[in-house]
């Protein structure tokens, strides 16, 4: 374990988020944390109610297994730091998180590749959420000024009467290329809320897919995305909901702002196979609202300052 590497990863994690206090807490003794730099497990500690196991596998993946034990409400968040400090490395992580019945947890994952020129980060994730559980997962990325190639695919099962909330943000720096997918299956009375926020620039390529299969009765899901694409970047969002269960409810809400020569695409995919299910969507793609821009200019802000503020509001 190298304190120096850990400190550097924490420092870069701060670049990915507005609220630096959240990152500061990584130092606290009360939080569980797993820190992986390239292929090395730098730190792994867990509080009561949380179990974290990590090991290197022969296929180059680092395997991470996390269990939130039955009935345990974890007071402080569980932290993950996955980073690459070299300019060129392929990091591969295979993660499984189990939230047992009646457990409650909030997780923060910081993925940082600050000096990347050719870094690749491949992440396969599974969430197994039991019954009556609450599970929230916030993921923040920072890919430096050149960008990295990130592929992060998650599959989740949300048990009866449980809640899954995910929040993915890549707002600062350059993306590189991002292929982010989360596919969920929801049992009776369960809920899934997702928000993805990505700002792309230069030649970034962004693909985001959020998907919810509402299997159980009264299952509900809201899938949100907020993408801002500038320069020559490309942003593509797919929000998919399948309404199977009785009275299941779903909503896709997507907003994309494009500037310069950027290209944006958004596809809401709604499928209802049960007539009591109800799915809706709203999508807006376009440039920054002219009236909002002129209002801020009329307060003395330049066009660039005004755009920054409007985009910041949209990203919060």
């Amino acid at each position: 374990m190298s304190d120096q590497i850990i400190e550097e990863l924490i420092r870069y994690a701060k670049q990915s988020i507005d609220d630096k206090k959240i990152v500061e807490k990584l130092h606290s003794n009360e939080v569980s944390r797993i820190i992986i730099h390239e292929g090395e497990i730098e730190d792994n500690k867990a509080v009561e109610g949380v179990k974290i196991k990590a090991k290197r596998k022969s296929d180059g993946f680092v395997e991470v297994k996390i269990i939130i034990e039955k009935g345990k409400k974890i007071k402080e968040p569980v932290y993950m730091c996955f980073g690459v400090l070299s300019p060129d490395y392929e990091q591969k992580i295979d993660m499984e998180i189990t939230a047992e019945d009646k457990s409650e947890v909030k997780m923060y994952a910081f993925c940082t590749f600050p000096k990347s020129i050719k870094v690749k980060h491949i992440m396969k994730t599974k969430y197994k959420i039991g019954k009556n559980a609450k599970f929230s997962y916030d993921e923040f990325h920072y890919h430096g000024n050149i960008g990295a190639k990130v592929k992060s695919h998650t599959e989740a099962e949300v048990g009866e009467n449980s809640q899954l909330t995910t929040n993915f943000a890549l707002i600062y720096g350059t993306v590189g290329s991002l292929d982010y997918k989360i596919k969920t299956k929801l049992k009776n009375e369960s809920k899934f809320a997702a928000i993805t926020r990505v700002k792309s620039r230069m030649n970034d390529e962004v693909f985001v897919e959020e998907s919810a299969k509402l299997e159980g009765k009264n299952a509900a899901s809201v899938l949100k995305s907020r993408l801002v694409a500038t320069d020559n970047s490309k942003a593509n969002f797919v929000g998919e909901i399948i309404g199977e269960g009785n009275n299941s409810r779903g909503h896709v809400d997507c907003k994309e702002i494009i500037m310069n020569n950027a290209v944006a695409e958004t596809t809401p995919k709604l499928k209802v196979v049960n007539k009591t299910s109800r799915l809706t969507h709203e999508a807006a793609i376009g440039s920054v609202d002219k009236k909002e821009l002129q209002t801020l200019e009329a307060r003395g802000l330049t066009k660039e300052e005004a755009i920054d503020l409007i985009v910041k509001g949209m990203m919060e």
Partner: protein
Amino acid sequence: MIEVQNLVLEKNGRRILDNVSFKTNKNLFAIIGANGAGKTSLAYCIMGIEKCSGSIKVDGEEINNLKVYERAKKGVTLAWQIPAEFEGMKVKDYLKASCRCLNLNENKKEELIERTIEKTGLNREYLNREISKLSGGERKRVELASVSLVKPRIIILDEPDSGIDLISFDKIIEFIMELSKESQVLIVTHSKKISSMTEEALLLKNGRAIKLGPTEEILKLYDEVKK
């Protein structure tokens, strides 16, 4: 002092403003006219939101060649008839942006923002609310707070009382009175009630300036013109 000469605005082949001229140094001034008279268009031309021909001078300095933010830097600002929604933006962030150019430290700015929002009749808890989730009347008040925080020389208020309930009306009048102590306030309105607080007024009809004079006289004329 604002001086407007021969403003002409055409849109899609229609003449929206037809040689409008007026000049005033009064701190409470009304631009009066019926729906479609061209009031909002005139306000947009002064702010630079619409580009028109003619001359607009603020304290003798020509501004009609300037961009919106440059006019703002010269001391002109505008409160919209229907304010923007700013999805996701908090009231606090909008108001902070509004007083960005003031020469005050952060603490002083925050105090000023709190005092200002309260004067519009909204309590300070509104500062953490999202603008897009406010009611129309609440958003109008935030808009008033915003222009006041710019501390400009000239404030154009487009229908400041629209969407404001009767009980709050007096509070808004009071607010505008206070604004007029430090700035020249141009109130764009079709309502006699709010224009009667001004000293001088301009009557617009079909894009033309019909008459400039003491508000009382203009309101009488407004009645006649309407018939």
